[in-house]
């Protein structure tokens, strides 16, 4: 009851004309930034911080604006994943797996609608979780130690083999290339530069967004160029400009499951939205991929990761607000802004600044509804984008990705890295190697290594610490179960196909 009355006060704050205006602006700008490949929520939020200072907004209004941008980016990232096979930001990579095939089959409108609704469900569940359980969840999350994080990453990488591609060995190899790339740069624990070839540009490691747009966008251009003009479709036919509501309803369980998985990943500091959407996808594939339709345009393969990434980004606000620990790159920027406005996030924030916390929570509910309303009518417009001929679309995409990366880093070196990753991505795609595990390896590898080393520092070199806590044991059992299930399914499918061949023959 107390929560409800606090939330009521929050709505009073959030409904002031200024805050509503900021909310609308944030949602719009966020969707735009998220949809542009090369610009993600981290940049989007960082770009708008000076603006909040310039206007002298109070901390609550500033947070409302920036969180609306944050949520907007999470909605927007999926658009180019589905339409162009180029993720708009890191968490949207999983959406390419089934979203783009759906679009190719003329189901772009459905894919966009499903992902929009899934984003709404995921984010709303996360906000409900935030308003009801934030302090309790934060207290639970602190029991996750370095060894447990390492076990979580092991679970993630063990299940990677199942996400896509023909040969699981190639998928694993792709993840390992990502892990290799993640070790490039100055090692934060010992301060030793690794694999930098004495170039200062590499001291900070490989920027994931640079690798991401290079691997997907540049390689897409190279792929298109090898087809002859004749057998390349001028534009993808659009089955319908309007989504079918039945198709959305059929993915309801996928959305709910994805939200649950994503939310848990978000609450754990450091795991973040990419892990949330990845785990949501894998979990959904494992539970409902009965006919082998995942990866070929299964609507549930769009619903689950989108619900997962939005739930995770909402969940990441919990450790940020109640512990002062950023759960992702974007929440780190939000945290920095709060601190420079003299708001100290941490255990006392909920008591001392109830206006800020509940005003923010209320505005997040409103942001979700706004984004849903904003996004559904835009589906028609975006699907028409698919009819733009390739010769016009791809140069613009290339230019946008270059500008997006350059405008943030002001580094020509980053652009050269993008081209390098484009060639790498092209070669790997030709060899049937999925690029998604590579990006995940790059995103998660650094934390995986650091947590392993932290665990070993705690135990003073005793490897048994990795299996010393109930949480890590549980995660390893889950990993083993997952692998066993995959092997069993693979064997069964093999037998099935042999039986089919026998009956056909």
């Amino acid at each position, binding site marked *: 009851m107390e929560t409800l009355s606090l939330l009521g006060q929050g709505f009073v704050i959030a409904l002031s004309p200024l805050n509503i205006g900021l909310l609308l602006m944030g949602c719009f700008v966020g969707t735009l930034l998220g949809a542009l490949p090369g610009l993600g929520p981290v940049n989007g939020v960082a770009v708008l911080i000076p603006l909040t200072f310039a206007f002298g907004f109070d901390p609550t209004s500033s947070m409302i604006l920036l969180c609306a941008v944050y949520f907007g980016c999470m909605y927007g990232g999926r658009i180019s994943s589905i339409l162009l096979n180029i993720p708009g930001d890191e968490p949207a990579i999983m959406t390419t797996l089934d979203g783009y095939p759906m679009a190719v089959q003329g189901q772009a409108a459905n894919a966009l609608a499903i992902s929009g609704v899934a984003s709404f469900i995921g984010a709303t569940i996360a906000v409900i979780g935030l308003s009801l359980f934030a302090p309790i969840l934060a207290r639970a999350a602190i029991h996750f130690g370095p060894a447990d994080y390492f076990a979580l990453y092991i679970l993630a990488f063990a299940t990677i083999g199942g996400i896509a591609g023909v040969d699981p060995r190639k998928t694993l190899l792709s993840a*390992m290339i990502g892990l290799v790339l993640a070790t490039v740069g100055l090692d934060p624990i010992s301060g*030793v530069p*690794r694999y930098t070839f004495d170039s200062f540009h590499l001291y900070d490691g490989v920027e994931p967004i640079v690798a991401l747009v290079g691997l997907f966008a540049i390689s897409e251009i190279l792929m298109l160029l090898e087809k002859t003009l004749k057998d390349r479709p001028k534009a993808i036919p659009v089955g319908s400009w309007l989504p079918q509501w039945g198709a959305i309803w059929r993915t309801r369980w996928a959305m709910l499951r994805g939200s649950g998985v994503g939310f848990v990943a978000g609450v754990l500091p450091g795991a973040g939205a990419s892990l949330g959407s990845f785990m949501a996808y894998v979990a959904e594939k494992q539970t409902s991929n009965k006919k082998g339709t995942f990866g070929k345009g299964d609507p549930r393969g769009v619903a689950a990761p989108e619900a997962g990434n939005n739930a995770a980004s909402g969940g990441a606000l919990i450790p940020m607000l109640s512990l002062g620990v950023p759960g992702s790159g974007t929440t780190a920027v939000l945290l920095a802004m709060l601190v420079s406005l003299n708001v100290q996030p941490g255990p006392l924030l909920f008591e001392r600044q109830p206006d800020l916390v509940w005003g923010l929570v209320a505005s997040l509910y409103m942001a979700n509804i706004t984004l849903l309303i904003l996004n559904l009518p835009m589906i028609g417009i975006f699907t028409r984008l698919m009819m733009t001929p390739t010769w016009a679309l791809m140069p613009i995409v290339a230019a946008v990705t270059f500008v997006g990366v350059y405008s943030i880093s002001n580094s020509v070196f980053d652009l050269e890295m993008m081209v390098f990753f484009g060639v790498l991505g092209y070669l790997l795609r030709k060899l049937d190697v999925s690029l998604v595990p590579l990006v995940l390896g790059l995103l998660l590898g650094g934390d995986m290594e650091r947590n392993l080393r932290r665990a070993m520092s705690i135990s003073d070199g005793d490897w048994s610490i990795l299996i010393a806590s109930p949480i890590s044991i549980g995660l390893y059992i889950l990993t083993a179960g997952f692998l066993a299930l995959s092997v069993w399914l693979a064997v069964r499918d093999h037998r099935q196909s042999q039986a089919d061949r026998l009956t056909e023959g």
Partner: protein
Amino acid sequence: MGVVIFVIAALYTRQAGTYAITFGDVLGPTVFPIIVGIPMMLLSASLVVFPTGQVDWPAPQRMWRQLAALAVLVGYTLTLEPLGFPLATFALIALIGIILGGAPWRAVLLGAIMAPALWALFDQLLGLPLDFLGELFVAD
């Protein structure tokens, strides 16, 4: 490809051994790269021995177009700072458009519209500064 990755993994693992463990760091910077490098060598070796899938590399004339596209992209990274943003981007969009098979006049038109539009979007609206004129045109 298995061979290439095997060689890279082997070099990577070898290089890992050269990083010294510093004071107070139990596992040190070498162990994790080795943990990744060795299975990577094994996996790539298994792909060499038991390959899967076949690759149709593009015909030589297609390869030329890909190389041309790469040349344009690299050229862009080199000309961006001297020429300034809108000019370099105009060239990028127009040339890639032509390589992708668009009619030349349309590609040029597209570049002429989109390059300034993108500059306006990023520099003016999003507040991310981009040089309008490059170093060649701005006298110090």
